[in-house]
C-alpha cells in the first residue's frame, strides 16, 4: 500500500515537473505577449525529436541535447515573434483583436511545424532507452531517467523563477506583463522584451521536449495534447501568474498520476472535467487576481 502511494506520488511529481515547465513557457507567451501560442506543443515535439535523432544517429546524450535544443528554439521563437507577431501587433486595432489574430496565426504555425516534422521523421511512434537502469527508494522501484527528468524539471523551473524575480531583464518582463505602455514609458524596449518572452517560452519547450523524450513515447502529432495540458495548467494557476503555473503543473501532474493509476484512458477526460469546472467556478485560477 505504502509502496503504491509512493509510486503514484513520485509519478505525479515527474509529470507535474514537466507540466510546470511547459506551462511556464506558455504562461510567459500569453501572460506577457498576449499570444495564446497553440503551437507551443509543436516546439516541445521538435525538441523531443531532435533529441531522439541526435541520440540514435550520433549518440549525443539527451542531457546534452537539452543544452542544444533550448537555445536553438529560443532563437527560432525570438525570430518568429520579431517578424510575425510584432507585425500583427502593430497592425491590430486593439489588444483583444491581436489576441484573436495571433491565436489563428499560431494555428498556422502548428500546421506548418507539424507537417515539416511529419516529412522529416514520418508518422511513427518513437522511443529510445537512456539511463533505464532502476533504483529502489523505500521498496518502490523507479527508472533512473524518470528521476533525472524530475530533477532537471525542478532545477530549470526554479532557475527560471529566480531569473524572473532577481534579474533586470526579469523585472522588465514582469513590468511589461503588468502594463506594456507604462513599461515602455519607463524605458523598457517593449518589442525586444516581448520577443524575448516568446523566445523564453520556446526555450522552456526546448527543455521540456528532451526530458519528455527520455521517459515517454513520442510522435509528430503529440504536440496538441501538451499544448492543451499547458493551457489547463496556466488557467488553473491563474493567467499570467508564473508561480501559479508552477504550482498548477504539480497539482495537475499529481491528479493525472492518481487517475492514471485507476484507469489510464481516463486521465485526459479528468483534465478536461477539472478544467471546465474550474472555468465555471473560479476562472481566475488559484493565484489569479
Amino acid at each position, binding site marked *: 500500500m505504502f509502496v503504491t502511494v509512493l509510486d503514484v506520488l513520485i509519478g505525479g511529481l515527474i509529470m507535474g515537473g514537466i507540466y510546470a515547465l511547459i506551462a511556464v513557457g506558455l504562461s510567459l507567451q500569453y501572460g506577457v505577449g498576449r499570444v495564446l501560442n497553440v503551437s507551443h506543443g509543436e516546439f516541445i515535439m521538435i525538441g523531443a525529436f531532435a533529441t531522439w535523432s541526435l541520440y540514435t544517429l550520433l549518440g549525443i546524450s539527451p542531457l546534452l541535447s537539452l543544452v542544444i535544443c533550448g537555445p536553438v528554439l529560443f532563437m527560432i521563437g525570438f525570430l518568429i515573434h520579431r517578424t510575425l507577431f510584432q507585425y500583427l501587433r502593430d497592425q491590430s486595432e486593439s489588444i483583444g483583436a491581436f489576441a484573436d489574430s495571433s*491565436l*489563428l496565426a499560431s494555428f498556422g*504555425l502548428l*500546421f*506548418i511545424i507539424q*507537417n515539416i516534422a511529419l*516529412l522529416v521523421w514520418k508518422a511513427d511512434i518513437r522511443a529510445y532507452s537512456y539511463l533505464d537502469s532502476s533504483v529502489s527508494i523505500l521498496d518502490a522501484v523507479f527508472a533512473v531517467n524518470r528521476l533525472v527528468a524530475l530533477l532537471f524539471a525542478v532545477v530549470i523551473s526554479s532557475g527560471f523563477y529566480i531569473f524572473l524575480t532577481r534579474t533586470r531583464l526579469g523585472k522588465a518582463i514582469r513590468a511589461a506583463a503588468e502594463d506594456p505602455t507604462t513599461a515602455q514609458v519607463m524605458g523598457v524596449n517593449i518589442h525586444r522584451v516581448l520577443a524575448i518572452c516568446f523566445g523564453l517560452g520556446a526555450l522552456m519547450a526546448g527543455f521540456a521536449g528532451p526530458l519528455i523524450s527520455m521517459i515517454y513515447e513520442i510522435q509528430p502529432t503529440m504536440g496538441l495534447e501538451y499544448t492543451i495540458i499547458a493551457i489547463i495548467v496556466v488557467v488553473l494557476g491563474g493567467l499570467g501568474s508564473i508561480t501559479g503555473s508552477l504550482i498548477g503543473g504539480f497539482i495537475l501532474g499529481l491528479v493525472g498520476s492518481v487517475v492514471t493509476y485507476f484507469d489510464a484512458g481516463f486521465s485526459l477526460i479528468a483534465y478536461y472535467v477539472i478544467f471546465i469546472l474550474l*472555468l465555471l467556478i473560479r476562472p481566475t485560477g488559484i493565484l489569479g487576481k
Partner: protein
Amino acid sequence: MLLATIPLYVQPYLIILLTTILMYVILTVSWAIFSGPTRYISLASAAFFGIGVYTSALLGKSLPLPVVIVAGSLFSFILALCIGLLTLRLRGMYFIIFTFSISELMRNFLLWWETTMTGTVGRWVIIVDHMTVYYIILVIFALVLLTAHLIRRSRFGLALRSIGEQEEAASHIGINATLVKTITFAISAFFMGATGAIMATKWKYIDPRIAFDPLLSFMPVLMAIFGGTGQLFGPVFGAAVFAYLEEILTTKFPYYYMLLFGSILIVVILFLPHGMVGLVQKWLKGGLNRQNANP
C-alpha cells in the same frame, strides 16, 4: 436554383465534392451567425457536428431519415442552450478555450466509453445514396442562409452587433444580452447538428475521432475569417474557396497539404485582416477614392 439542377448534368464525383463544400459552407455560415456579430469565437462546432453524427449512428437504423436529422439538430440545440447558460461569465480567451474543451471532452469521453464499455470504437451508419445526401445538404444550406439573412436584418441581429461592440452598453440600453447570446448560439448549433446527422450517412463508418475532429471546429473559424465576417456573403465565399482549395491540396499534395494550408492561413491573417470580401470592398472604395482625388 442553379445548384439544385446541377446533378442532372455532372459526374457523381462532382456531386460528392459539392456536398463536402456545402458542408463546410453550412458550418461556416452557422458559426458566423453567432460568432460574427458577437465576436465570441466558438471552437465548439465539432461538438455540435459530432452530436448530429452520433444521433444518426444511434437512431438511423430505427427511424426515418428526416426524423433523425431533426433529432440531431435538436440535441445540438439543447446542448448549446446548456453551454450558453453555463458560460455567461466567460469572455474572450476563456470562452474560446472553454468551447474547445467541451468538444474535446466529448471526444475523449466517447473514445473512452466506446473502448471500455461497448468494446468497439467505431459504429456503422445506414448508407443513403449521394443524390439524397446532396439534396438534403442543399435544403439545409438554403435554410441556414435564410436564417442568417433574417437575423442580420432583424432587431435581433442589431442586438447581437451591439453586444459585439460593447456588451455593457448593450445591457444598459435594455438588451437581455444573455438571452440573445444563448439563443443565437443554439440556433447556430442547430444547423451544425443537422449537417452532422446527414454527413454521417455519407461516411458509412464513424468513430469519435471522425465525428468530433477538432479540425471541424477550426475550419469554420478560418474560413469565415478568410471570407470576412462583416457580410453575409463573406463566410459563404470563404468556405467555398477554402473547401475547394483543401480538396485540391489534399489530392494533389497529400504530403505538403498541412504545410501549404498553414502558410495560406498565416498569409491571410497578415495581409487580409478583413477577409476576401473586405479586400474587394477596400479595392472598390480605393478605386472610387482614386477617381475623386486630385492627380
